[in-house]
């Protein structure tokens, strides 16, 4: 039904929790093999968007097609296509790194030898060989995040959701993760990424959508957006288009609380991510 070169097609998507409208009519299109960054402050609705597209939550209205499958009517088709790494670690801490990956290989119904090869390959490309047989509970934050992403990749999904993949990571781990995302693109995988770091969107994404208060307030390539707002950086764009500065750097806060974030002036903090 949908164009094979289109990975994600969203039209008129809305979602409310009780009286709180989290998404107020989202339209967007992500071409296959590209990185799309959904950029916005806490409480903008980024995580809700990912949860709808990854079949965890149902939208109130509107349509969404992922990998050619309708998220509402064909969730199993969507699930066969996608891999999801959320902002909360989804690893099994009592298992070792290798066992976590093996679990994914088994659930993907890979043949035994095929699964073992895939696990070894991912351990080495994610720099987890030395820690492979240690329990994941002993891993550092960066290692956990790498394992989490490696688990998502075991089944070679064509479309990957990364919900705030670098929140809470130190700069080095963040750059390692960016490197991995760029490698994914060489395998022509589509990446749908949410972030509150402007730098991250600028670095990785072909197209950026600015989400604010449940609406997509601007969309385009990083260059287009900068031109549109007459600014040098995406920071300027954000300020020009939303009337307030991009977000706090509170790494511990989560996007799921669904309440309005504290949008106080944090331009000082903004300097810190640069």
């Amino acid at each position, binding site marked *: 039904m949908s164009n094979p070169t289109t990975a994600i097609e969203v039209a008129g998507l809305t979602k409310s929790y009780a009286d709180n409208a989290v998404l107020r009519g989202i339209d967007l299109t992500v071409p296959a093999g590209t990185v799309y960054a959904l950029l916005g402050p806490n409480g903008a609705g980024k995580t809700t968007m990912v*949860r709808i597209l*990854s*079949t*965890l*939550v149902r939208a109130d209205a509107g349509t969404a097609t992922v990998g050619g499958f309708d998220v509402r009517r064909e969730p*199993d088709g969507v*699930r*066969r296509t*996608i*891999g*999801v790494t*959320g902002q*909360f*670690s*989804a*690893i*099994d*801490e*009592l*298992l070792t790194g290798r*066992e976590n990956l093996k*679990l994914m290989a*088994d*659930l*993907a*119904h890979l043949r035994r030898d095929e699964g073992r090869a895939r696990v070894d390959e991912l351990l080495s490309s994610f720099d987890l060989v030395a820690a492979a047989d240690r*329990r994941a509970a002993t891993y550092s934050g960066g290692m956990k995040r790498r394992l989490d992403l490696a*688990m998502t990749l075991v*089944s070679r999904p064509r479309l990957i959701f990364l919900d705030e993949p670098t929140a809470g990571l130190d700069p080095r781990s963040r750059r390692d993760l960016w490197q991995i995302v760029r490698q994914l693109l060489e395998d022509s995988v589509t990446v749908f990424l949410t972030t509150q770091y402007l730098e991250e969107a600028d670095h990785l994404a072909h197209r950026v959508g600015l989400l604010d208060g449940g609406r997509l307030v601007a969309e385009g390539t990083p260059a287009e957006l900068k031109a549109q707002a007459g600014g040098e950086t995406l920071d300027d764009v954000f300020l020009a288009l939303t009337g307030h500065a991009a977000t706090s750097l509170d790494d511990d806060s*989560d996007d*799921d609380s669904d309440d309005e974030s504290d949008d106080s002036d944090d331009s000082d903090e903004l300097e810190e991510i640069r």
Partner: protein
Amino acid sequence: MTTLTYAALDSATMLGRNLKHILRYPSLTLMLIGQPVLFLLLFVYVFGGTMGAGLPGGAAEVGGAEGRADYLDYIAPAILVMTVASVALSTAIYIAKDATEGIIDRFRTMSVAKASVLTGHVLAALLQTSFALAVVVPFALLLGYRPDAGVVGWLGAVGLLLLLALALTWLCLALGLAAGSVETASNTPMFLVLLPFLSSGFVPTDSMPSGLAWVAENQPFTPVIDTLRACLAGSSPGADGWWAVGWCLLIAALSYAWARRLFVAARAG
């Protein structure tokens, strides 16, 4: 491969994961088995001499070895039921841990057979129950428990205990999913371990005040314990057997529906 094959395959994968958890968290298993063993020692050696003498047709002499032996005989079925309840309780903790750690969300975004996460837990609980019973029964025998049951009686007793385990495990899965946190999940199913005290398990129900006796006679654990007692004594449980099986099937069916609904609807934070 068919959907059913995948479901079986995925359940086996989940079972493997849960068994690893059980092996790597031995203190919980130790506590689960230690609890009925401790109760057995307490009730036989501390209370047994006096309680045994109070049983209908019990030993004349209060505090004698005969009373203790009688009382061991009387409470053994209740201890086995508590063993089953104790293991089921751990399932609530395991599933709540899964749900709070976000790994369930990962499973739910994968093309994994829907029920496999839950059936994996149930299968693991049944294996753990078998293991716990294989420790507690010989321990009771060691203390001098001498049931008269033949092969049929033992098969009936074990069958009913596993059916009870199935029912209580599904119930605990639902309670664990409904709990929202590991702490709550370790508390809400506690009534399952306490309820056998309000049954025919430790004293005859007609020795209780009438209101309490009514509760004790009409709660599910009483027919289960009476049936076990009959099976282990080598006699026929009669109508109690049907009540016991009926209660277990009812609890299993309702809890299964509840747990499944919670699992599908679950939205981890």
